[in-house]
């Protein structure tokens, strides 16, 4: 099942030369099937079927006495999600994800613009590396760092004190979550935005200024619309990643910082209630599917 073998069968039929055109096309199709079968098998058997099973599990329930899963279809889990503390948790998660996305877009845009259109080639390469390295630095390290910065005796309060300013005391609040999420997902916004800005032909900007547009007008009516697919592509990452995260709230969050991810985590790993956790998991899926459908209309998929 090694790639070499798969390819060689393909090349055999292709370079055989003596076979008729039709048989070589047929051989090519078989070769393709041979190549694609193992990865597709993996995905359908392990991943897609798991997703389907999870969706079915969402309609099962937990037997209150035995703690076993009852394989009988019921909408009870979804009733539970629609009541109690869950709507507030879902709202908090969506609002936070939206806030983080907007903040990242604002922070990333001028940076990506300089990378794509202002910097020299050498500076551009350096800036790319400067985004690449934090992107791939350990996820937990990046979150944990914010404790050292935001806690009471942390770097932020210390700096503010030495500047003679009052301590912000951001540690273990929803503000800390917002800051941390903005930080860890920022490179995911910069990269597609940079790609979109870089692809804008310089002649368009020249034309705009030749025709008497101010740089502000050009930015607003030429650059921004053309960068929009990149912006939307970046927002898919920042939004989706925030939507499913449970680590950040547990590390830097405080009271009332439970997100959908935490609710899923608690129900499954602490409460052993797999059906309810599965039902809760459908919420981010539904939100993301809706988000992706909207994003597709903005042509974001070409910029991913």
């Amino acid at each position, binding site marked *: 099942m090694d790639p070499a073998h798969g390819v060689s069968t393909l090349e055999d039929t292709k370079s055989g030369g003596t076979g008729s055109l039709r048989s070589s096309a047929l051989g090519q199709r078989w070769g393709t099937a041979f190549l694609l079968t193992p990865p597709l098998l*993996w995905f359908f058997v392990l991943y897609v079927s798991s997703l389907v099973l999870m969706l079915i599990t969402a309609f099962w329930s937990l037997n209150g006495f035995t703690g076993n899963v009852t394989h009988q279809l019921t909408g009870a889990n979804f009733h539970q999600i629609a009541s109690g503390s869950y709507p507030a948790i879902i709202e908090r998660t969506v609002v936070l994800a939206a806030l983080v996305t907007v903040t990242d877009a604002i922070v990333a845009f001028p940076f990506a613009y300089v990378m794509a259109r202002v910097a020299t080639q050498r500076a551009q390469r350096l800036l790319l590396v400067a985004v690449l390295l934090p992107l791939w630095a350990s996820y937990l390290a990046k979150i944990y760092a914010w404790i*050292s910065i935001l806690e009471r005796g942390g770097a932020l309060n210390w700096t503010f004190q030495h500047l003679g300013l009052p301590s912000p005391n951001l540690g273990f609040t929803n503000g800390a979550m917002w800051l941390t999420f903005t*930080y860890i997902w920022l490179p995911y916004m910069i990269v597609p935005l940079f790609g979109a800005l870089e692809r804008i032909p310089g002649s368009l900007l020249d034309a705009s200024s030749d025709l008497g547009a101010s740089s502000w007008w050009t930015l607003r009516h030429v650059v921004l619309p053309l960068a929009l697919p990149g912006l939307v592509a970046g927002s898919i990452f920042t939004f989706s990643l925030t939507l499913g995260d449970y680590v950040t709230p547990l590390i830097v969050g405080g009271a009332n910082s439970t997100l959908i991810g935490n609710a899923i985590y608690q129900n499954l790993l602490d409460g052993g209630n797999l059906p309810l956790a599965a039902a809760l998991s459908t919420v981010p*899926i539904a939100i993301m599917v809706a988000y992706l459908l909207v994003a597709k209309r903005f042509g974001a998929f070409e910029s991913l």
Partner: protein
Amino acid sequence: MKRRLLARGGLWLWVWAVLAFLFGPIITIVVFSFDRSNIETLPIRNWTLSWYQVAWHDEQVRQAFVLSIKAACAATVLALILGSLAAFGVHRARFFGRDTVSLLLVLPIALPGIITGVALNSTFAWAGIALSIWTIIIGHTTFCIVVVYNNVIARLRRTSATLFEASADLGASTSQTFRFVTLPLIATALVSGGLLAFALSFDEVIVTTFTAGAQNTLPIWIFGAIRLGQQLPEVNVVVTAVVVLMLIPIIIAARLTGRDTFSASSTRVPTNQS
């Protein structure tokens, strides 16, 4: 003209501020790993390497590290095989399902990771499969495949098919063409994809939590230690070590494939088309 200069200065100021924002926290962690004190307070009065010693001799850390390396190696090998098969297949294919295959491979990282975790967990529970290193590897491979796939297909798209045709026309056998033409052409993309897959697996915590059961990978150990809050100086050290260790494969990968790595690393999350 003056306004333009001012705008340019403002932009560069913004760039420097963002760079400080990107690197400040990582530097903070590294600095605190050399702090002797149990409680992080600035300024640091006593510098020490002693926490490195403590971490080095911590049996739990060692076991977690070994498990992470094992899982990452296995997931990388599987992802290399499945990801490059998929890339060759999709590259050759001229069928309507091409984009569907790309989308399918990207799905585990386009959807929030917790979904993959819960889905696999419910399958293992339903099938009565006990959580072990194999369930960790299954989870990791599923989201690592796309990294290899992206790297290899980007290279194949850029390689002219005439090279393979020339090889065949000059009388090379299929295996010779593969050995002397195809493999050298995609070798760096494979290595780079493998390194990125390794780094991705080595650092993963969201999916792993749902597929590891009672075992500790290194990220799970770190996560647990942070939540318990009892070994924080040690956490600083381990986390610093992880950052440094991850830099190595990333830098090599970047050297090998240049911008390809970059587009693929935005697929630490997806890129499917270029």
